[in-house]
């Protein structure tokens, strides 16, 4: 690998980011984090009110990155087969019948699982294998999903009635959980301009799937100091109430701490973020940047936290500050 190639990665990612920004007004941080997830190779759970451009974001991304895209609207009556596909009887030219696998919408590079919490757990779990193993098993056959594959699921935090909260095991398979904020005035004006006033913009393809896979491999090797790595691991450990250096908030309000997948997520996404920032090493800032998105859905708080109005973000902030203090030399 040549230095020139590494140098071009930051430019490429920057170009993708700019291109997506043409269609998605505001949400810079969400776009950036989704891109981090794309180049890390992980799934993203987007949480936000309806109409914030979640679907548009995924569509735009697939277009800019020349990836296939499918959208699944999760409803209570959605069946697993509707997601992964099913075997159907087909007649060939000779007139004999045989089962043939009809691929479901999951067979795409980018899958938008819209309002994932409205489907039954059975249907939700149909996505589990695809999200983690990037394979789909129907009957006795297992089908490999084409890389890059990622699921971008959305859920609406407002309408909880008739929803099925995602089980912990499934939540853990999302690399990031991103909170999509409501746009400010300027951003809202921009959105109106693009959508209502028909100020269309032509999106260009910046990158293809092969290049994405190449970049992923290169970014895995971004150097990380032991100090920074230890900091990331301490942050994850501090989400456990029984960790000796856990802050008071963790001890008091956390029921279950984050799994080792959280550490993997933080370290791998921090590497991508470092390069996006134009650096060739991971810094504490990178850890601080990715940790909230990587952790907020991975630890579970008790009833006291709900009663006291404690948010996961508050605890994470406390952890990030506290653990950095102890990391000082």
């Amino acid at each position, binding site marked *: *690998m040549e*230095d020139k190639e590494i140098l071009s990665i930051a430019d490429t990612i920057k170009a993708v980011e700019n291109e997506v920004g043409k269609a998605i007004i505001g949400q810079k941080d969400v776009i950036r984090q989704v891109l981090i997830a794309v180049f890390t190779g992980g799934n993203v759970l987007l949480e936000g009110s309806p109409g914030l451009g979640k679907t548009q974001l995924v569509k735009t991304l697939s277009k800019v990155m020349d990836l296939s895209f499918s959208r699944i609207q999760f409803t209570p009556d959605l069946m697993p087969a509707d997601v992964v596909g099913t075997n159907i009887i087909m007649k060939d030219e000779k007139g004999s019948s045989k089962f043939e696998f009809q691929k479901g919408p999951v067979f795409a590079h980018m899958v938008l699982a819209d309002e994932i919490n409205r489907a039954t757990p059975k249907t939700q779990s149909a996505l589990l294998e695809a999200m983690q193993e990037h394979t789909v098993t129907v009957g006795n056959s297992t089908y490999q999903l084409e890389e890059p594959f990622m699921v971008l699921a959305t859920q609406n935090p407002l309408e909880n009635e008739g929803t099925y909260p995602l089980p912990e095991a499934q939540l853990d398979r999302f690399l990031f959980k991103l909170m999509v904020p409501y746009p400010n005035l300027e951003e809202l004006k921009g959105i109106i301009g693009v959508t209502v006033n028909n100020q269309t913009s032509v999106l260009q393809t910046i990158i293809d799937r092969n290049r994405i896979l190449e970049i992923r491999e290169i970014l895995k090797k971004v*150097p990380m*100091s032991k100090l920074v790595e230890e900091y990331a691991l301490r942050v994850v450990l501090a989400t456990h109430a029984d960790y000796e250096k856990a802050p008071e908030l963790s001890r008091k309000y956390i029921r279950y701490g984050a799994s080792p997948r959280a550490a993997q997520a933080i370290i791998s996404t921090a590497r991508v973020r470092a390069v996006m920032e134009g*650096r*060739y090493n991971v*810094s*504490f800032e990178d850890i601080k940047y990715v940790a909230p998105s990587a952790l907020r859905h991975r630890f579970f708080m008790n009833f006291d936290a709900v009663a006291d109005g404690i948010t996961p973000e508050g605890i994470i902030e406390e952890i990030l500050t506290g653990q950095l203090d102890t990391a000082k030399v």
Partner: protein
Amino acid sequence: MNLNKPYGKISYVLRKARNRIILSITLRNVTAGLCTALAAGIILELLSRLIPIYRVYVLWGYAGAGIFLLSLLSVFLFLPKKKAVARLLDSFGLQERIITSLELEKEDSEYKELLLEDTVSKLDTVNYREKIKLLPDKKLLAAVIFLTLAFGATVLLPQPLLEEARQAHELNAYKKEQKKKVEKAEKEVEKNTGLTQVQKKDLLDKLEALKQELKKSQDTRAADKALEKLAKKLEQKIDKTKEADLKNLAEKLAGNKTAQALADALKSEKKEEIGKEFENLKNKLKSMSAAEKNDFKDTLSKAADSLGDSELKDSLNGLGGALNSGDENAVNKSVDKLNGAVNDSLSQKNMNNALAQAQNDLQPNAVNAQNQGQNSGQGQGAAQGQGQGKAQGQGSGTGQGSGQGQGAGQGKGAGGSSAGSGTGNGDGGVTPYGQGGIANKAPSAGQEKEYEKVFTPSRLGGQGETSVITGKGNNNGKSETTITNNADASLGELMPYNQVVGQYSERAMESMDNSSIPGGMEDIIKNYFASLQD
């Protein structure tokens, strides 16, 4: 170091930054040390107004110097390592570039060259001189100024306990010195092989009790009293009779051919040798002729007459009686008994020596005597007419000297430590024991002075040989006159003036110690006796 190479450049910057950090830490620690020293000074100053503290400034000087030294030494505890400096520089906006570069130094990474290039380019943008300031912390500096002013203010406060502190310090020093003396005496007692275990224990118990008393004493006077009390107790235990008897016995026996070897052994004062000679005597007595036995009996009888100790006397008389009876067993038993009595006398002699040694060890020093406005030692030697320098000593020396044979032994025992040994300056006076002492105006070492002799009734009823006059109570009786050899018919004796005054002085001081006399009166009495030497 090649500054053109990335790692050379990084190391150079790290070294420079490290030196700056060390300077900064030194400055910080020294300022903090100064703060602590000033705070300690203020606390000491305030405390010295509440409790007596001797030489508070000297104490603060030591404490301050110690704190300052510690603050300097503590810099070594904070010496930053290379990685720590890298970490610090990274925190100035380099975002862990240096620390990651250092970790990659011995590793092979595809990113290494790019990272180093990036790090070196960023190094120039970091102004670590501005971040690592060589100025003391503002808060610390403000604290130094405030504490300096506060310290200055406390110095101006009146010091009502200054004199009390000085006295307490002197008392402690004195007690310490006296304690050393007691411990020295204890060691001497423990080392003394001539003492029995019981004697040793008795002496050690007394010395231990003295230590406790010294510990409890509230002033030097009380400490001296404790010393004096013990000295008196020890003196009471000295029994010179047995010691003198032993000498007399040796002299008397030396006149007899049979007992010549035994006399020599007694003079040698060696217990084993004496025991051996007593065994030899048993054998000799068996083969003695009648004339030799009579001669030996006479010697025993004369020796018995010359002794004061009843046990020794009885033993000698018993041996004489046994020789008369001719019973060999009785003779042997009597010899053994005599041996036992001699051993007792020897043991007492050892005890006497130990007691004298302990007394000598426990002499209060001249410094203390001077502190009490008295000059203890100087001129004492002259007072005894010895002028040997050895015969210095305190009042006890004088008292003992005069009472037990001036200049012969006690005077010497008490001497040695006084500054004015034998070269008195005429300031002699009352010793801290409260015993009188007479000083010579200008004695010189080795010089003897003859004092005018004055009559003293001290020998009235003195020791003489007891004579028994027999007679019958009737009207026709005749008178008999018996002339005794040793009777002292005189009613007194002529003694040197200084000894007489010394004894009077001693009695007066004892009386003062044993009764409550106003402090002012004591001085008058002491001055009076001091003036008598003129």
